[in-house]
């Protein structure tokens, strides 16, 4: 067999293997989603969404957990978005090549890699204990806000960086100050990317479980929070709670709740992709 034929054969073989590997990844995802759908879909109903938790699996619902999750999402966004945006703008537009900005840079890279349980410990010590918030919506939101802050900052920076330098130059050359340039040109042009980042970060926050467990979010909360200082449950905590019950029927509940959680995260991700594509067309 000539070398050329051999090389072409190997090439073809790898093409097949590569396609298989790629499809395998997707296949696993499909198996996994189908399994959850198969297990949980029948349990999904209005009653399931609107019922309070219960010791009877067939009577139990996710009303409080769902509302808890919505509370967390909103509050986390309110806390994290302004800070993350401002920090991202600062680092990208003001950060000069100094030791301080190098420190910020490395700091954010590291923060993004800190495991979420550690954020849980931080929240437990600072918000729950030191600031006496207890295991409240507020404490959890503050903790999750810190957790997604690096994601927001990085997303903001990337979106801003994608704004062509020529746009900034044009603005400066017309006598704009730095902030005017940011406000009139950079932010509008990067809004798509920033929004995408915000939504992805929130979808991350919605699914976080470990920090909430460390904060001591409760096992049984039969009411929806009314204020940020109320105790609460959240979807992932409820799911974890049900998963760890050995009765089959709670496993079905867990699967049904997972479907709801996945709808939320996938919905958010889909929205993010939609926005990204929409905005991409707007850039020069």
């Amino acid at each position, binding site marked *: 067999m000539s070398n050329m034929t051999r090389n072409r054969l190997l090439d073809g073989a790898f093409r097949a293997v590569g396609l298989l590997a790629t499809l395998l990844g997707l296949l696993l995802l499909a198996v996994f989603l189908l399994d*959850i759908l198969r297990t949980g879909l029948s349990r999904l109903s209005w009653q399931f969404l609107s019922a309070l938790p219960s010791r009877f699996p067939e009577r139990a619902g996710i009303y409080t957990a769902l509302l808890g999750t919505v509370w967390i999402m909103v509050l986390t966004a309110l806390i994290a978005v302004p800070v993350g945006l401002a920090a991202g703008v600062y680092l990208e537009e003001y950060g000069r090549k100094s030791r301080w900005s190098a420190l910020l840079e490395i700091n954010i890279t590291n923060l993004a890699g800190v495991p979420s349980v550690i954020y849980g410990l931080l929240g437990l010590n600072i918000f729950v204990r030191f600031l006496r918030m207890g295991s409240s919506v507020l404490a959890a939101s503050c903790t999750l806000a810190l957790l997604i802050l690096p994601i927001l900052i990085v997303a903001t920076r990337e979106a801003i960086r994608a704004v062509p330098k020529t746009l900034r130059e044009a603005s400066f050359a017309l006598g704009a100050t730095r902030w005017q340039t940011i406000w009139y040109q950079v932010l509008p042009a990067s809004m798509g990317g920033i929004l995408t980042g915000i939504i992805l970060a929130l979808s991350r926050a919605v699914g976080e479980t470990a920090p909430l467990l460390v904060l001591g979010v409760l096992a049984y909360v039969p009411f929806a929070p009314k204020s940020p200082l109320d105790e609460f449950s959240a979807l992932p905590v409820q799911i974890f709670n049900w998963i*760890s019950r050995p009765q089959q029927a709670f496993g079905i509940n867990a699967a049904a709740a997972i479907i709801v959680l996945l709808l939320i995260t996938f919905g958010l991700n889909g929205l993010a992709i939609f926005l990204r594509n929409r905005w991409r067309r707007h850039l020069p």
Partner: protein
Amino acid sequence: MKQRERLIEALLALSAGISVLTTGGIIVMLAVEAAHFFRQVPLGTFLTDTQWTPLFADKHFGILPLVSGTLLTTGVAIAVALPLGLIIAIYLNEYATVGFRNVIKPLLEVLAAVPTVVYGFFALTVVTPFLQRLIPGMAGFNALSAGSVMGIMILPLVSSLSEDALTAVPRSLREASYALGATRLQTAMRVVVPAASSGITVSVILAISRAVGETMIVAIAAGQEPRLTANPLVPVETITTYIVQVSSGDVAYGTLEYDTIFAAGITLFVLTLVLNNVGYWFRQKFREQYE
């Protein structure tokens, strides 16, 4: 005008400062609490004792069993994610059409968007029973099942970041290779992958760091028994699981037992810190190469 600009800059800088405060907060908190711990348990013992039984009568404070549990699950995850992720990255970058890649890549990234508690459920209810049929005698909680599911979770991290690294290799190098009569596979293996090696390394390091810090999958499916073993078929406990177990179990606050979670926490923090910085360093190196 000048003043307004200054004020705005100060406000923005303050926001950026919060991220530094967070890091500072984490470090101070872990250091202070772990200091209590290390006042009573010598660092040497902590690092070399092979048993971890701080909550029991016969107390041992050796972190090794937790570290080994963590490394074991991480090892399994990487063993799944690395080959698969790399093949996918090469395939998508060198073989697949742009259309196919644009559809597949976000789909694969969905794997990383799934909340980890959901993966835990999957590991426990699907993967473990499946593996038990193949490997009789495998325990219900084990590192293999948790690790492989974690591997699926970090798969897109490896495949996407590696793919980005491959994409960053200048097209001119590929063209040079093709123009000399190379096939795609030859071009990929001899030119593109070597040129992207530091980027690929970054992706793997980040994936390891992610696996080391992952909590819910292992807490649900790997077990809660600190055990110094390399056997992936028996229950183990990871550092993260221990932290969740103890902090939500609410051991008496302020006691030595309680401080163990900060000793474990600081170990975890240092592990991921080292990994992230090695990754960061590699990435800088990689950037310099092509920018």
